[in-house]
């Protein structure tokens, strides 16, 4: 259980950095993105880079930050045997996974460009979701 929670915390941190990088580009703090295909800029400059008036990258920053705090809390000894943090992470990452699928669909069918950082973020979210699912599995109670 601890290892899966450690892995989730590390993945949340990685996702947070990806989202912060995309957001810094979006607000003009980074001149050119490191992106092999050049599709990153097309995606980031498209109208679809905003969702309900909010930058998608900022939504990512907030989402990953919340999940990182949850993953960190889940590692504390007082939460060791509890499934509540994992349940919350499962719900959040599930929502984020659906949102990522929607954004990937936009890249493929509307914008016609793929941003590698967005793909990396989607892969991270999928891994967090699977780990949270694994962490929630019922365990045999150890006799005392």
């Amino acid at each position: 259980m601890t290892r899966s929670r450690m892995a989730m915390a590390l993945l949340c941190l990685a996702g947070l950095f990806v989202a912060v990088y995309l957001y810094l580009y979006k607000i003009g703090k980074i001149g050119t993105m490191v992106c092999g295909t050049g599709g990153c800029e097309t995606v980031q400059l498209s109208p679809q880079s905003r969702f309900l008036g909010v930058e998608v990258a900022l939504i990512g920053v907030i989402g990953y930050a919340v999940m990182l705090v949850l993953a960190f809390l889940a590692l504390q000894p007082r939460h060791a045997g509890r499934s509540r943090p994992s349940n919350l992470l499962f719900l959040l990452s599930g929502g984020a996974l659906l949102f990522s699928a929607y954004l990937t669909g936009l890249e493929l069918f509307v914008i016609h460009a793929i941003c590698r950082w967005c793909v990396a973020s989607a892969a991270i979210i999928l891994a967090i979701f699977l780990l949270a699912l694994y962490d929630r599995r019922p365990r045999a109670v150890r006799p005392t």
Partner: protein
Amino acid sequence: MAQAAAGVNRFYFVLGAAALAGIAVLVYQVQKPKAVSIPVNVTVLAADTAGFRGYFLGSDSAKIEVTEYADYQCPVCQDFENIQFPAVRQQLIETGIVRWRYRDFPLDMHPNARVAAHAAACANDQGKFWAMHDALYQHQAEWSPMKNAAAAFSDYAKAAGLDVSPYDQCMRDAKYAGRIQASYDEGLKVGVSGTPNFLIAGRLYTTTLPSDSIRAIVLRSVPQPILPTPTR
């Protein structure tokens, strides 16, 4: 129990190190010199082209409109601009016969062409399109081989009297990427195959033209009575 605590502590150390490494990378990315790049094949929105047909020179009431499709990094375009265009400007535009319409047609083979077109578009925000246009062609040999030509363009903008802060912001935002794409798409639609190409009185000329030829074509196309003889 103690072993588990040691494992968690080791993990915190790894997490902290990863956090520091990530922060260092982000700080480096923010502080490194910013190269501007203008994306290709962006989705053109209605707002990108609303009320905009190109950059014009000459009288609204001119009898003929000549459209030039050009690429700032193309040497043939530079020849045209520096050698032929002054005569066109003097004989046809300033005399009110021709209204000149400039359209961007940045070729894929020229990596700085789109950034240059964008620099001119940003200069247009401050009413300095033609000053920037002239500077770009004049200094083509200088910036053409550069990896970060946008830095040179910023210097030209300053020399042309632009307020550099909004200009730089415009460049960073790639504000006119859609407008340039629309211009390129328009060129493809009318059959432009290289640069410079000219659309004169509805006919496309897919080659560069000397000023005499442009004058002759315009002469044939304009309803008489017509042109003053150029002074020698």
